[in-house]
């Protein structure tokens, strides 16, 4: 047993986090970051309005480079559909099934594109990932 694992017996925070199983990953429900506002624009696509980071560094950079207070991102049709379903009620499995039916995608194709897209949204902290049971995995701002 590695030293880290031995220590983890007594100090759980030191331990390695076991990766989620496929079933656990599929049960995760993405949820919008509450600080982001969004609305539908002409054509049905969704426009996100993301506030500039408000910590000290964000304020300094904002003043130096005259960064606008909010950044706008326009999602395409498919991205908008996924975004709308990131409401904390639909699991990733639900979103995949919906995408597969709506856009006539093969299940695997839908799975790859949806999981990649949600991963990007989570990395940019646009959505949080809620495991069933209420534990947040990602995306606090």
């Amino acid at each position, binding site marked *: 047993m590695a030293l880290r694992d031995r220590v983890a017996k007594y100090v759980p925070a030191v331990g390695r986090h076991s990766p989620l199983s496929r079933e656990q990953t599929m049960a995760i429900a993405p949820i919008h970051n509450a600080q982001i506002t969004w609305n539908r624009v002409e054509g049905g696509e969704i426009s996100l309005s993301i506030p500039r980071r408000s910590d000290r560094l964000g304020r300094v950079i904002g003043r130096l480079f005259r960064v606008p207070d909010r950044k706008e991102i326009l999602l395409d*049709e498919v991205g908008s559909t996924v975004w709308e379903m990131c409401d904390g009620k639909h699991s990733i499995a639900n979103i995949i099934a919906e995408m597969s039916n709506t856009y006539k995608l093969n299940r695997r194709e839908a799975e790859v594109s949806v999981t990649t897209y949600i991963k990007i949204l989570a990395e940019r902290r646009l959505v949080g990932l809620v495991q069933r049971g209420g534990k947040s995995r990602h995306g606090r701002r």
Partner: protein
Amino acid sequence: MSDNWSVVGWQGVSLRAPSDWNLVAVSGEENKGYFRVDSPSSSAVEVRWEAAKQAPDLDAKADIFLDALGKTARKKRISFSSRVKSRKPTPAEEKYGGDSVGFTWKSDRSAYGRMLYCGYCKRLVVGQVVSEPKQDLSGLSAAILGSICEHADPGWNTWGLYDLQVPVPESLGLKRHSLMSSFVELEFAGRGERLLVQRWGLAANTLLKKTSFADWLANSYLRGIEGYRVVAASVEDPHEALAFEGRRSLLKFLLSTISRLRGKSMPRSVTGRAWYCEDSNRIYAVRHYHRGDSGLDPVLRDKIKCH
């Protein structure tokens, strides 16, 4: 069975699996390779192959294979049991000559497997359906494993993935592939020929959202065929479709003649077809660079089922 089952094929090794099982991993080439097909749950089919000029002793090979698995399990301190059993020859084995043995193993996962020597493609193939120990997939496994290397269409290899099935002449080998979400591309080459099969998903929602199929073909697809003077015309087809053909331009023709003198042959013509299947929301395109008068595209159009 055919409605809910589809063919998964890679490098001439194919099998039939439930249509919601999908190819998730490929590696290697014609002489040695691997692919895995996952079910929506935790089951999967794994297939490995390697070229073998003669039929090996399959019982001995199966013992070696299972011993290696047992060794790995023992290292992890997991119990392991296995069994090798003889199988009834499949119609393909009777037709082309060949042999197979069945095996099962149980550890933290369990598997039903088949090791076979294919008399048609001269390869040793190991296929196994792996699942949770609690699951009983014996019936399903028998159907999947029995369909490995059927070679139902001699002279053609079936390439099957993501609902796409493309029979390709055995003389053409895979040169390049791109398996992206909503875009699949397979490029084959051999004996001065080149065959490109492409499929775009989400057609109505992305590519054709602001343009028509005909305009997209003219402005995007056909412009990608460089070095040929291409003429396109719509053709009779259940879907909106277009056939095209092109000849090398004079300059390119002269350059290709020089290349030919140096021992490299260049395809003189390109022919192809593209069609938009609204039922599956996909665009399909087949492009064949060849030296003869007629290309493979009409044959492939008939063989590719789009929905």
